[in-house]
């Protein structure tokens, strides 16, 4: 099976501060569903950040989607990011854009035609149960609704990899369930690799998953 992520002796740190992730080795198969857990401050969000090139490895090698991130050019990094969908705990929606335009963003970046873009956005808005609010702006929505928009945006361009940083952290049960359903659906139906950083793994997962735990700067698989 193809490896979508391969980390070898990977160390991560912010500028000159102490090392957060220390010489870890792990890999993720294409099409798998992975949870990364760990205590607050253990470095799970830092690791996720490094997976989309938001933080360069301090040492070692990190290959995502065939792209070596320890020494990557901005054009190559942009190319990689065009094939990744990211969901943040704080949503990261463009406030001055309607939710429809926010969902369109990866499609516009990937150069999809207008007709395809609109059809895909309409479909996703239905999936996240926000089709009646397409023209609204992010700040007019609740936290749960904003996260659903972020989720739709992450799925819009059928990415090979979805990275989600505590996607249900502050959400009500309804929105949380919707988000998990969408992530599971992407993984089972589209064979998208999903990596979720979270404190709690939901009990009723319908797909097989891998579980990595981060502690004291090292990572290990939990069986």
């Amino acid at each position: 099976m193809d490896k979508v992520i391969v980390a070898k002796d990977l160390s991560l740190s912010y500028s000159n501060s102490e090392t957060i992730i220390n010489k870890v080795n792990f890999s993720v198969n294409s099409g798998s569903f992975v949870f990364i857990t760990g205590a607050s401050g253990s470095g799970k969000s830092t690791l996720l950040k490094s997976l989309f090139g938001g933080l360069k490895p301090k040492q070692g090698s990190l290959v995502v989607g065939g792209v070596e991130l320890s020494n990557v050019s901005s054009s190559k990094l942009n190319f990689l990011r065009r094939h990744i969908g990211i969901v943040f705990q704080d949503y990261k929606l463009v406030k001055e854009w309607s939710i429809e335009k926010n969902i369109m963003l990866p499609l516009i970046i990937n150069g999809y035609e207008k007709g395809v873009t609109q059809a895909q956005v309409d479909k996703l808005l239905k999936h996240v149960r926000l089709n009646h609010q397409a023209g609204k702006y992010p700040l007019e929505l609740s936290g749960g609704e904003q996260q659903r928009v972020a989720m739709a945006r992450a799925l819009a361009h059928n990415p090979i990899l979805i990275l989600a940083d505590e996607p249900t952290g502050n959400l009500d049960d309804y929105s949380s369930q919707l988000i998990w359903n969408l992530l599971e659906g992407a993984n089972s139906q589209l064979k998208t690799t999903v990596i979720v950083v979270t404190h709690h793994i939901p009990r009723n997962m319908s797909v097989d998953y891998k579980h990595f735990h981060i502690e004291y700067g090292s990572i290990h698989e939990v069986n």
Partner: protein
Amino acid sequence: MKSIRNHLSLVIALLSILFSIQVFMIVERSIDAYKENLASNYSVVVVSQKKLSDKSFFALNDLIESVSELTPDSVIKKLNSNMEAKNVELLKLALPKFYKLKLKYYPNPQEIKQLKKDLLKQKGITKVEDFSNNHDTTYKLLVLFKNVIFVFSLTVLIVTILLIFKELRIWQFKHNERMSIMGLFGAPIWLRSAVLFRLSIVDALIASVLAFILFSYIASNAWIAKELENIGISIVMFDPLNDFLLLLGVAMSLSILLASLIVLGHKEEV
């Protein structure tokens, strides 16, 4: 309303720069026109012991545009009441030749000095009257006026550039988040900054059109035209094509520079 507010701050800053540039150009043109007027009324009188040709004057200094000989008749007329005709003729022959020199433009004091020096080098010329006291005072006034306007325009320019830099920080704050989010999804730099460049180009266009309307109004204002006519100045205050293109060019360059600085200073926040 929000959209108007988005544009207003940069449009006002750009408009004040365009205003100071155009005012400076109008003053420049007025001074040039005034200098032309002065040049047409100003002449240098030369006294020579022998008759000189026009060519010999032109060879002395490039500033000379035309030469006319002054007849001594008016002076002699005052004296001839008690003089015999023969003596008048003798007097005419004994009198030196007077020449009035018209200049190509209104010279500065150094050029006047040089002209006087060149003329006195010519054999036969004994005196050159350049009315330098009057000339120097007028010229210094002109230079003073021009410098005052220059300092005024420069001050406006500096204040406005400071305003633009303040605007740059606001824009940086406003656009940084959107550009970072676009970056997370792999948008190339040109796409991330497209909105910014579109905004700055639109603002430059708005500011230039407003400057066009303002100066077209000023140029067609009867009171201003009359005031200029009173001091004998006839100028094109605002050339709708050339001046507009110049103002548009300045506004575009400034706003594109502003947008480029934001793009260059953009730091990805994740």
